[in-house]
């Protein structure tokens, strides 16, 4: 929790309180009028994402779903919404904030309305963003996880918890684990000073990130290494977007070769389905994919694992995902289904520890003009 300050509500806080009040008021009016309370929300499914030509990212379309008290699940979600509204209103009043995980635990006291998994509470927080077109930060909710790490010749200024400006060079002022991305990477918290690099390489796994650090790839290739830690958090994606927009650095994602890794790239480059309402803040449309493809598995004769039934299901789902409908992805997904195999990025070690930095990445990045 942040320290208490004088309770003068900011305009943003007022806006949030008004929006939340509006939701509760609508439910109240429906009940008072003898109606079944319901709430219309844009569907957050792959069937309802549309390409936004203005921002070159995928955003929600116009399909609406209804959350109605007529159904048990809907009624329960409406009750939870009321609890969450009250909780957020109280936080705003008292100038406090909480992590999403804290809210999940707070719900323990909500009896039948309590959340059974944190995904449920996270999802509801996103629902509120979608409905009010505000950000969860406006609701005093923040992710508990720290962001991922950065190593490379970028200098930035971060406002520390003591309110001081601290200048950090992400190559010289950090240890081998790199600079840790805070959950808030907006300008009021993190300011870029300068970057001496040609591009940003966003890496899925910690093992590969460490390999590239040990091999000194950031210096050899003049790039900034960002560890995504699997499916990247909002702040990691926001940081990539800002490095791309403000520092004019090309972004390339380097992942494993499996259906889940394809989705990591999609969320970095095209926008994630769950957060499509804020894709224009999070997605970097020019990001290139240099991860392991199905063709790479064949061409580099990489060690593989067989696809699990879940993997196959994920690939089939991607076949109907509008974000993957270009020729490149169609081919790669189909090939992967055909060969029924997947490979990790570390499988490149088959040819030695330096193979990834001496051969694979140059071969991938060269045609993009990045090496």
């Amino acid at each position, binding site marked *: 929790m942040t320290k208490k300050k004088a309770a003068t509500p900011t305009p943003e806080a007022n806006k949030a309180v008004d929006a939340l009040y509006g939701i509760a008021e609508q439910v109240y009016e*429906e009940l008072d009028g003898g*109606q079944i309370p319901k709430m219309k929300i844009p569907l957050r499914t*792959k069937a309802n994402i549309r390409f936004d030509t203005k921002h070159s990212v995928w955003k929600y379309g116009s399909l609406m779903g209804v959350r*109605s*008290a007529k159904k*048990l699940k*809907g*009624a329960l979600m409406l009750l939870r919404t*009321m609890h969450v509204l009250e909780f957020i209103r109280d936080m705003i009043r008292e100038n406090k904030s909480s992590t999403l995980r804290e809210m999940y635990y707070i719900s323990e006291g909500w009896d039948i309305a309590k959340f059974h998994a944190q995904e449920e509470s996270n999802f509801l927080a996103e629902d509120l963003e979608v409905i009010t077109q505000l950000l969860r930060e406006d609701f005093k909710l923040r992710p508990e996880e720290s962001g991922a790490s950065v190593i490379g010749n970028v200098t930035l200024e971060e406002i520390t918890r003591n309110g001081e400006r601290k200048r950090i060079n992400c190559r010289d002022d950090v240890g081998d684990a790199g600079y840790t991305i805070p959950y808030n990477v907006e300008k009021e918290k993190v300011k870029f000073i300068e970057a001496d690099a040609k591009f940003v390489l966003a890496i899925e796994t910690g093992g590969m990130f460490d390999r590239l650090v040990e091999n000194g790839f950031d210096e050899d290739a003049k790039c900034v290494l960002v560890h995504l830690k699997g499916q990247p958090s909002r702040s990691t994606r926001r940081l990539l977007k800002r490095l791309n927009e403000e520092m004019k650095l090309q972004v390339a994602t380097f992942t494993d070769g499996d259906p889940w890794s394809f989705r990591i790239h999609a969320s970095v480059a095209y926008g994630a389905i769950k957060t499509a309402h804020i894709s224009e803040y999070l997605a970097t449309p020019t990001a290139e994919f240099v991860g392991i493809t199905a063709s790479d598995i064949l061409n580099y004769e990489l060690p593989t694992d067989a696809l699990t039934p879940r993997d196959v299901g994920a690939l089939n789902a991607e076949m109907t995902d509008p974000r993957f409908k270009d020729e490149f992805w169609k081919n790669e997904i189909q090939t992967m289904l055909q060969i029924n195999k997947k490979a990790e990025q570390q499988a490149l070690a088959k040819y030695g520890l330096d193979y990834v930095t001496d051969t694979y990445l140059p071969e991938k990045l060269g045609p993009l003009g990045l090496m």
Partner: protein
Amino acid sequence: MPSTSIAEELAKKQREISVSEFFERNKQILGYDSPTKALLTVVKEGVDNSLDAAADADTLPDIFVEVRKVDKDEFLVIVEDNGPGIVRKEVPNVFGRLLYGSRFHSRRQSRGQQGLGISGAVMYGQVTTGKATKITSKVEEEDVAYQVELIVDTKKNMPSKVREDRVVYERTHGTRIEIPLRGRYVGGKQSIPEYLKATAIVNPHARITYRSPEGESTVFERATEDLPPKTKEIPPHPHGIELGTLMQMMKETKSYKLGAFLEEEFVRVSSRVAKEICEAAALDPEVKPKSLGLEQANALHEAMQSVKLMAPPTDCLSPIGERLIKKGLKNVLGSLRPEFYAPPLTRDPAVYAGNPFQVEVGIVYGGDLPPDQPVEALRFANRVPLIYQAGGCALTQAVANVDWRRYGLEQRGGQGLPFGPAIVLVHICSTKIPYTSEAKEAVATVDEIMTELDLALKECGRRLKTHLTKKAHRAKTREKFDIVQLILPRIAEKSAKIVNKKVPTLDATITKIMGVVWIDEAIAYDKKQKRHTVTINVHNFTSAGKKLNLHLLLPRGMEAKSFDPKPAEVRDDGKITWELKRVDSVAKSSITFVLDGLDEAEYDESDVYVSGINPGLVIGAEPLPGDWELNYADFEAEEAPTPEAEEEGEIDYDEAEEALEDD
């Protein structure tokens, strides 16, 4: 009866050959064709003997069974009962003489001795182990029990005593038999415990205690203190008689004239009919039956089949009965906590080839029964479990012939044993069960029997389906109950608090969500008074007041009293009708009554029907069926049931989610 006459033949023959050869030649028929089966057969003979002993003495059977492992493949089977005991001089004859004192010529529904009965078991024991069987028996009049160790002298078919003694015996009367034999002990569906369990189901008046070779004890407590009614003996019906038996009867009869013989020793034969038979056979009614040769007997037999006769009387049958089947199933299968015992069904008696028979069916559903296995078919013939030859048995085939998909069970292609968490009990009782073979392990497919079985299974299946449908309706409505009773009031309270207004009234919203009249039954039981207090609640969750009639069908043989409010009509057959006063929107109306003198498990629900209201609005009761013979079925035209949920094109947000896996 042909089966017994063959056994008699066997008994005669065995004098000429060695005992072991005798068993070897006839093992199929006798039930001793494998070590596994032999062990079960010996237990069966012992238990049958004990049940018969108790039945003869009108006592509630209390039977103890133990299988003790003596050596690698040698066992000692102990069966002890609380029967009247056997007087000293009869003990050796009962246990040491083949076919002594058995029920050969009785024409009543009997357990039907398998092979040679208890003395056959004694003999099998002596052949395989060389050891004698020990019998201890005490009659109430004696102070001590008589104990004897004996073997069967196979040359003379006489008992041969090895040792005899008088011993102190703890029970006032009863018999204990200890048979040593070679055999093999197995688990599974054809095991001794499964056989005893099945026996306990159809003999709910018996207490059976079993101790396994591992020393574990299982007790099947009795579920009722009522003895099954005694079966009556009846003479045979001309249509069911077989030639051999007819000839045997002619040889043994005391009648001097054929006409009198027919009239006296068969049912449904009047002097007019006897004359008709004789005419058809071209025989003189005055002729002496004993003098007839094979050809004449044959003609007589044919004539007997051709005449028109009344069906045989059926009061000689002793079905288990609907109440006791349910009790027996509940008692033995209760630990599986089944969710439903479909009310069992006892069909009216029918006749095949002059033999009266009756079929009974019960279904147990749900609970801990495995949901993905074929259902278990428990087969019984004259209260004896059938363990072997399930595939070739009419009882199994009848189950497989029903399309169970209609009744809520899975079945590939609508044929074969269905899959699902269910056990189907099928019982046939008859003065003569048509077995497929002398081994008496399976019932033959006789058209009349198949028809009766089919009707019984389908009716019981319908009862299961009714339950499942009701359950599905209730689950759906239960969900709505949760919404309106638990969730909605809290949404109202929270939203009112946030907008700082008073909590709104929810009645209109509740009726919009529910839109039904909900009927449920609550039962309270007072153990001391043996009294069920039944409350039927009618909740009106529609937007307008509702007037309706409620009809109740009590399970057969039950009588209700202390009605509140007074019913409009109470009939002898358990049909009760109430004309309820108007129930306001969001109000409740209740009916109570009591049932006295029943065990707690005996009543779990009545069939509830409604009339005078659109049945589509009602959950928890069926529309009044046409055969109720009442004119209640009409109802005023009124609002239709609320159309199901979604308005046109509306997508349920909370069901549209998919696994996104992208943060």
